[in-house]
């Protein structure tokens, strides 16, 4: 059978951001693909090297909307390593609370999106309705629904008084049952399973070879999770399970995300119960000496890496970040071939890609 090419993107109904795929098909079956990125490359790393270390907190928070908290968080950790700053215990817990709230909202967005892509729009609405409770919580605690501005160098910029501890706990209780129901629907609904099971399979050996991270890696049987491998903030004091699935398909990736939402609720509850007393930030403005460091965190999409090199001035000599989606793109070359054209959007959605993150 002769093959032919069809373009997908850069502007396409299932793509929230622009990326262009050149798909090679035989009949309805994908046999090859080429990825063209670069439509939203803005030169943000260059910008970061024109701004001072404090201004970069604001800039890094705007790399991505769904992982926005992880960027300034990880950037701060790199700075704190160079300047040998010890973050107060209460701030370490508050950092984790902010991060896990963002994780719940991000994962619910993706599981909703997958339902939308497979044509199950009522489930999409259901997931977004649960997410709305999380968005409200963010708005009430941080004053904003997406960019929380929770982090500062050496601590956090927000506190959670006793009254808000009760408020957050109540909101978490509110979403528990609906999330369990959402997970049950994902596990039992035939439409969801038919459209996601066996679709876009990434075997474990290929997951290792391509160096994928986050839920994409964990859905292929890898246990990689920065929160366990390189614990930061207060993760080493908390108890939680790493969600791992063996299927390696779009279905396994959705399950990993939903199970991580349930774990995230448990993590926030532990933090709220154990929240230590004390300061939330440094009482002085730190000076950053010359040095270099890397810092990592587990963003909703996986491992986020920051490399920072300073030279004693307040302008970084080099600031580089590698977002979790970045290593996952090439793995699409394994996931997409031998799938039907109609499943391409499901596969793409299942890696939860962030294109603005990738291209910076």
């Amino acid at each position, binding site marked *: 059978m002769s093959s032919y090419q069809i*373009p997908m*993107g*850069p*502007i396409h109904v299932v793509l929230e951001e622009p990326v*262009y795929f*050149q798909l090679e098909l035989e009949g309805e079956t994908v046999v090859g693909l080429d990825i*063209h*990125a*670069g*439509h939203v*490359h*803005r030169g943000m790393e260059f910008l970061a090297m024109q701004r001072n270390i404090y201004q970069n907190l604001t800039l890094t928070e705007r790399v991505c909307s769904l992982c926005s908290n992880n960027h300034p968080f990880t950037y701060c*950790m790199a700075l704190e*390593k160079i300047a*040998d700053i010890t973050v107060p215990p209460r701030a370490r817990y508050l950092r984790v609370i902010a991060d896990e709230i963002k994780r719940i909202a991000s994962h619910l967005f993706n599981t909703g999106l997958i339902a939308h892509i497979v044509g199950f729009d009522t489930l999409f609405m259901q997931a977004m309705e649960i997410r709305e409770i999380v968005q409200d919580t963010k708005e009430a605690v941080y004053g904003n629904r997406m960019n929380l501005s929770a982090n500062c160098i050496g601590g956090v910029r927000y506190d959670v008084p006793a009254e808000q501890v009760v408020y957050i706990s109540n909101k978490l209780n509110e979403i528990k049952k609906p999330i369990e129901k959402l997970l049950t629907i994902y596990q039992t609904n035939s439409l969801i399973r038919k459209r996601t099971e066996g679709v876009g399979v990434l075997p474990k050996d290929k997951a*290792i*070879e*391509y*160096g994928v991270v986050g839920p994409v890696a964990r859905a292929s049987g890898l246990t990689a999770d920065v929160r*366990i*491998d*390189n*614990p*930061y903030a207060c993760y080493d004091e908390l108890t939680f399970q790493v969600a791992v699935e063996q299927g390696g398909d779009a279905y396994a990736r959705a399950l990993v995300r939903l199970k991580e939402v349930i774990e995230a609720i448990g993590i926030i509850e532990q933090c709220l119960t154990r929240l230590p007393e004390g300061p939330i930030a440094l009482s002085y403005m730190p000076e950053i000496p010359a040095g*270099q*460091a*890397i*810092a*990592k965190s587990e963003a909703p999409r996986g*491992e986020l*890496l920051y*490399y920072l*090199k300073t030279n004693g001035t307040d302008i970084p*000599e*080099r600031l*580089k970040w*590698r977002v979790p989606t*970045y*290593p996952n*793109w*090439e793995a699409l070359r394994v996931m997409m071939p031998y799938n039907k054209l109609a499943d391409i959007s499901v596969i793409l959605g299942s890696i939860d890609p962030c294109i603005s993150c990738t*291209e910076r």
Partner: protein
Amino acid sequence: MPGQQQLEIVNQKLKQHFSDSEEYRFAVQERDVTSGWLWLADSKDIKKVAQTIAELQGRVMAITASETQAEGLDVVEIVYHFAVGALNCNCIVTLPDNARQIESITPILKSADWQEREMQELYNVQIQHHPNPKALFLEEGFSLANQSMVPLSEAMDGAMTTTLWERVMQAKKREVEKDE
């Protein structure tokens, strides 16, 4: 400390690959993340390090290039950020400003693919023997090394736009021919 075991193994493997200890220097930074820092005297040795990481089923997390100075000379410093389990291993090589060339490690570690291509187009470091060296973010054939101020639309990958305009121009040509 997570990563401690891998640190020992990497250290042992490096000793096997490097005959002379003068060729590299290894130090450890332990705070939150177990990080090994490795300085290579010769940039060609990056393949030996990549081989070590590959043997341990490790991966490339990122590659950072930066323009800096060493001993009063302009240089390009490249930091390879590898991961082996819980260990983070950063390997630093330096290239003279006028000889920005390095061997590709993508044939050894697939995860270096996009990172090397990005470094090639944004820092003008020629990656030798890369299996797929085409432009990643910028328009094919476009080099940042020649210009400092570039309109965004010119720099972006215009693959789709070209296809679209080719069709528009062809349709227009057909219309003109019909009118004639």
